[in-house]
């Protein structure tokens, strides 16, 4: 008896709640970007709601490290939000294949994106799109302008100039030439190998050839970046073997190092920390006049829960994410996370402007290990971390590293067998 009363009361309350919000649809957004909560609440959500009365947004981020696990269990339990922030490549592809992410290939906003931008969130044959590309990060080198002025150095454009500059900084001795450690491993691969590599394997051309099995990791184009990395070891600070990522960040922002191999995601953090002027240069090319290639890596996408009750409202929102209005708000609120749409965007941060200007000068590509190639065991991305570290420390020769990675990849990836 009490039970039926309780159920009655619950039903009644749902009806009332339903009636109250009949006009307003609320979309809940799942995300791992809890750092961006303030930006969403103060800038993005008001801008969207002002334009689209009747749709309310609720941004509910979780901790980055837990996001994948939390999201998966919410999706399985049917309690996930309407809008889902997508990790690039296989994590999201798995969600799409499990039927959790909706097919949004025919969304109008999709027309604003290039194939490279879309590659992070499409099926392997690029036929179906399940997330709208939202932001990318660009790799390059940030440098201490004051240190460069003091030592009379120019931004290096070629590899020879790059190493000449490093030698000069080392000789002078007042700065550590380059701030990077190998303790956390990923920096060596992400900011090392995948930062300088595209110049050797010619960006998308080499990456797609590797995917197709036409090139091997033992080819010169894929071993040469390791050869350059092997030379880096001499220019990293004392004890770089135990230097962590936060150590490197601090060394650079404290003005103790001259060059910092990195990606654009550091910009907003560094702007607050460094009290010297920072500049940036893209990975130096082999010979003057060569085409430059940059890693313009797709990092954040946004898609729709296939089980949402409000597919129309969700599509309206996703279309807006593809617009230049969203791109401008997002890019300026988070300098260093660049919108992927072809829509024109004005950036105010000078360092961010520098990074994004390379898109005009150079050819864009994404990190070589991310699409498909890290699907099997051994995992190519993790192996690349390990190999990059071993090469920098001089424990493995570039050729051996290439051969080891090729052997691992060929063990499970059919086109490479």
């Amino acid at each position, binding site marked *: 008896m009490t039970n039926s009363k309780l159920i009655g009361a619950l039903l009644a309350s749902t009806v009332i709640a339903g009636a109250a919000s009949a006009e307003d649809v609320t979309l809940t957004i799942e995300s791992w970007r809890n750092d961006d909560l303030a930006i969403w609440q103060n800038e993005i959500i008001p801008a969207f709601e002002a334009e689209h009365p009747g749709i309310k947004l609720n941004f509910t981020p979780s901790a980055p490290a837990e996001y994948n696990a939390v999201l998966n269990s919410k999706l399985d339990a049917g309690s996930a939000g309407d809008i889902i922030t997508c990790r690039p490549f296989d994590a999201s592809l798995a969600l799409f294949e499990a039927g959790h992410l909706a097919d949004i290939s025919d969304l109008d906003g999709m027309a604003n994106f290039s194939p490279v931008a879309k590659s992070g969130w499409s099926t392997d044959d690029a036929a179906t799109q399940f997330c709208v590309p939202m932001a990318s990060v660009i790799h390059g080198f940030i440098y201490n302008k004051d240190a460069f002025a003091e030592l009379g150095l120019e931004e290096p454009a070629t590899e020879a100039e790059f190493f000449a500059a490093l030698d000069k900084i080392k000789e002078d001795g007042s700065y550590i030439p380059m701030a990077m450690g*190998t*303790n956390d491993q990923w920096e060596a691969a992400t900011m090392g190998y995948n930062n300088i590599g595209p110049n050797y394997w010619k960006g998308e051309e080499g990456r797609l050839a590797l995917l197709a099995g036409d090139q091997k990791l033992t080819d010169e184009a894929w071993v040469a970046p390791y050869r350059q990395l092997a030379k880096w070891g001499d220019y990293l600070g004392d004890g770089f073997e135990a*230097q962590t990522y936060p150590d490197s960040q601090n060394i650079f922002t404290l003005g103790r190092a001259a060059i910092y191999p990195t990606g654009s995601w550091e910009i907003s953090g560094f702007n607050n920390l460094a009290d010297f002027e920072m500049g940036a240069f893209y990975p130096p090319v082999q010979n003057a006049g060569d085409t430059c290639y940059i890693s313009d890596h797709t990092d954040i996408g946004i898609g729709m829960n296939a089980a949402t009750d409000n597919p129309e409202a969700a599509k309206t929102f996703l279309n807006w994410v593809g617009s230049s209005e969203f791109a401008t708000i997002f890019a300026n609120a988070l300098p260093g996370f660049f919108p992927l749409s072809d829509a024109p965007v004005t950036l105010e941060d000078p360092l961010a402007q520098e990074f994004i200007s390379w898109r005009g000068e150079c050819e864009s590509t994404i990190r070589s290990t991310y699409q498909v190639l890290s699907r099997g065991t051994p995992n190519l991305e*993790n192996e690349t971390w*390990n190999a990059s570290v071993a090469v920098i420390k001089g424990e493995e020769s570039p050729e051996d590293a290439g051969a080891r990675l090729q052997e691992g990849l060929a063990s499970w990836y059919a086109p490479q067998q």
Partner: protein
Amino acid sequence: MSDQHHRPKFRWHIVVFLAPAVLVYTAVMIYPLFNTLRLSLFTEVDQERVYVGLQNFRRLFGETVWSDQFWNALGNNFWFFVIHMLVQNPIGIALAAILSHPRLRFAAFYRSAIFIPTILSFVIVGFAWKLILSPIWGIAPGMLDAVGLKSLYAPWLGKEAYALTTLSLVSVWQFVGIPMMLIYAALLSIPDEILEAAEVEGITSLSAFWKIKLPLILPSIGIISILTFVANFNAFDLIYAAQGALAGPDFSTDILGTFMYRTFFGFQLQLGDPHMGSTIASAMFAIILVGVCIYLFGIQSRMRRYQF
């Protein structure tokens, strides 16, 4: 005849008193354990869970991609255990012997100071030691420099040859309080009469320790050894906090716990594989089970106990 009338009543209170512990233990330990063992017999094909028998174990031990990592982790785990047995337990016993000395001043203070790291979180310990040993901000290089031994300093946590031993010693530093406390308690329970009788026979100080106290605390040392064994083969937190899930440099600090974590939950681009993860967890369970059985049937049953 009268027996039937006076048959003792079923003692319900035993069931009632046992129930909470049994229920909680079943829910959080026994059920997950058996479910993990069960999970290791399945794999996932096209979003479906399929029964594959022992195939996962064949992969783990038969395919070099898996077995190399497994043997590496197991080897590292043994080294981790050996360091604990050779360093932590002797130091723990020595500390307990010193602390139980009746004329030692500030014994209570030392006891607490040595025991405190045990209750610290692994994250704090890992992070603090990483900072202490850091070549950039750490005090270790400076302190060695002050005594003229700067040349001995190396970025230990970043060198393959030293990283695991360094982390083992950090773990020893953290947990030396546990053997110390257990042995201390055992030493205190040795009746004074025995020691006095020995003294009358002319056995004092060090020889009293070797000939009388040590044999009497052997059962405690056995318990400590098996606790160390179980804790070491289940270890994960310190390595993860200090070196991350890839247990660098070059997997030189990878132990079974980090290997299992990486496989089960995935790492970076590596997607989690609960079935292979469970397989590794089952292997860990088997190793610990065998170790504990050897101890229980091989050592403990032969150990002599003294009743006072």
